[in-house]
């Protein structure tokens, strides 16, 4: 038995754009235990609901995370609409679904790039981000923003997206499929990538269920957990949605789930664009909010939970958000125990950590 050493990982670390700190307890080269400590990004934005009214709160909640920003905005809006008892027009729900899935494409491509960077494949990282810019151009053209959109509001959308633009979006994304496939085939087939990922950090189905893993982490271990098929969430029911599942539970499976989800999201967007009805995208809503409501969303990283409680005025009494990375940290700590030190960046990255979501 070797001597125990503790290696600090983070908060400023080249592999992570965000600060999280792990104390890695090592015996020789093997991690015995990983002790996470968080709190570097905590802002306390839920408390802002006392001084910002519910319309402004949507923009605050959207800024929980710059990667899944549309999803957070939608989650906040859905919980507030639920508390008011209003239902946004159908076209608005379609547009939200389309933009949310587009956000998933952008988020997963971004993550694939970071993963490639994590195992030292610099050119693959740059290719992923090159493709992602096309998606960001679509966002910029249709919403005005590259990463923060502020287009979702209580009662609908701030502006419509014309049918011509939607058609163009569909064409661009269908054209992008071949390019994405070329890149993702490298992840799946390249021997050096396989060496880094196959069999590394296995999370069994039982462990995933026990540790309440969510999103792609759970689905890579064979847990059929996807809010898009369970809850009354957007228009997924009309698009014939089936969750992507993998059985192996290792780093490779988590990557393959996200790769397949990129293609699935493009298909969902195309299906939604084919079906989208004409009509208004906005409706009048009461200017005070009372009652309470809970809603769940499937963010790119997994299940997110939103709770809004109105104060009977234009302010909320309480706004609570629980984000997917929060739920996946126990799974990450579990896979870290017993791993090689050199695999730590891979294991941290494959849960797709979003620390600013976690700490809010």
């Amino acid at each position, binding site marked *: 038995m070797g001597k125990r050493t503790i290696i600090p990982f983070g*908060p*400023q*670390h*080249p*592999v992570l*754009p*965000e*600060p999280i700190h792990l104390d890695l307890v090592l015996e020789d080269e093997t991690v015995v235990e990983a002790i996470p400590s968080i*709190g*570097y*990004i*905590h*802002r*306390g*934005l839920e*408390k*802002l609901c006392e*001084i910002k009214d519910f319309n402004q709160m949507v*923009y*605050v909640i959207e*800024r*929980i*995370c*710059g*990667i899944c*920003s549309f999803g957070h905005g939608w989650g906040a809006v859905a919980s507030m609409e639920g508390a008011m008892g209003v239902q946004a027009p159908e076209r608005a729900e379609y547009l939200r679904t389309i933009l949310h899935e587009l956000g998933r494409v952008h988020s997963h491509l*971004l993550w694939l*790039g970071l993963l490639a960077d994590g195992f030292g494949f610099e050119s693959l*990282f*740059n*290719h992923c*981000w*090159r493709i992602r*810019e096309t998606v*960001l151009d679509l966002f910029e053209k249709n919403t005005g*923003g*590259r*990463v*923060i959109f502020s287009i979702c509001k209580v009662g609908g959308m701030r502006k419509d997206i014309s049918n011509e633009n939607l058609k163009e979006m569909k064409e661009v994304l269908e054209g992008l499929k071949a390019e994405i496939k070329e890149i993702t085939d490298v992840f799946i087939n390249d021997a050096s990538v396989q060496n880094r990922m196959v069999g590394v950090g296995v999370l069994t189905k039982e462990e995933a269920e026990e540790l309440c893993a969510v999103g792609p982490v759970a689905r890579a271990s064979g847990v059929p957990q996807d809010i898009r098929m369970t809850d009354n969430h957007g228009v997924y029911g009309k698009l014939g949605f089936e969750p992507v599942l993998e059985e192996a539970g290792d780093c490779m499976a988590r990557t393959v789930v996200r790769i397949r989800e990129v293609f699935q999201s493009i298909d969902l967007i195309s299906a939604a664009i084919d079906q989208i009805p004409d009509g208004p995208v906005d409706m009048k809503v009461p200017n005070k909010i009372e009652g309470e409501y809970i809603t769940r969303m499937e963010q790119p990283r997994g299940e997110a939970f939103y709770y809004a409680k109105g104060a009977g005025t234009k302010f909320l009494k309480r706004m609570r958000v629980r984000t997917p990375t929060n739920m996946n940290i126990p799974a990450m700590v579990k896979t870290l125990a017993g791993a090689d030190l050199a695999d730590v960046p891979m294991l941290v990255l494959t849960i797709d950590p*979003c620390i*600013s979501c976690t700490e809010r």
Partner: protein
Amino acid sequence: MSAYVTKSPWVVHYDGSSCNGCDIEVLACLTPMYDVERFGIINCGNPKHADVFLVTGSVNEQNKGIVKQIYEQMPEPKVVVAVGICACSGGIFKDCYNVLGGVDQVIPVDAYVPGCAARPEAIIDAVVKGLGVLQAKRDAMLEQKPAEEAPAEEAVEETAEAVEEVKEEGGEE
């Protein structure tokens, strides 16, 4: 000697308490669409290799020590760029209980990038502005040996004046 630094400035990036929006835009600057690597700008993880410090997000009690530590580890001359409105003033999160304010509460800032999220063009522009300041600081150091401590401990206040101020101070020394 001075020519080399301004031709290939290396940056180190730290996320204060940003929402990731500015962070991914910082990374987007390095990737093929904007590709600042063609100018020799490299994002390195080690503060001791870096000339430019990009900070996104505001500071809080937990991370102010780390921001300070990274800044102190960087060799002179160095430049700090505050990326995004949160790093400039706290932005939309200014009123949050755990937000102290802009990065200039803790370390002197040389260039400010507005925007939520800051656009890559604006970030590149600020880094280029920062290089001017870096050059001025380096000239001042070369003129005066042994090198004096960099201009000011206290925060630089106005956005527009910040760059000019440092340049002037550099010139006088």
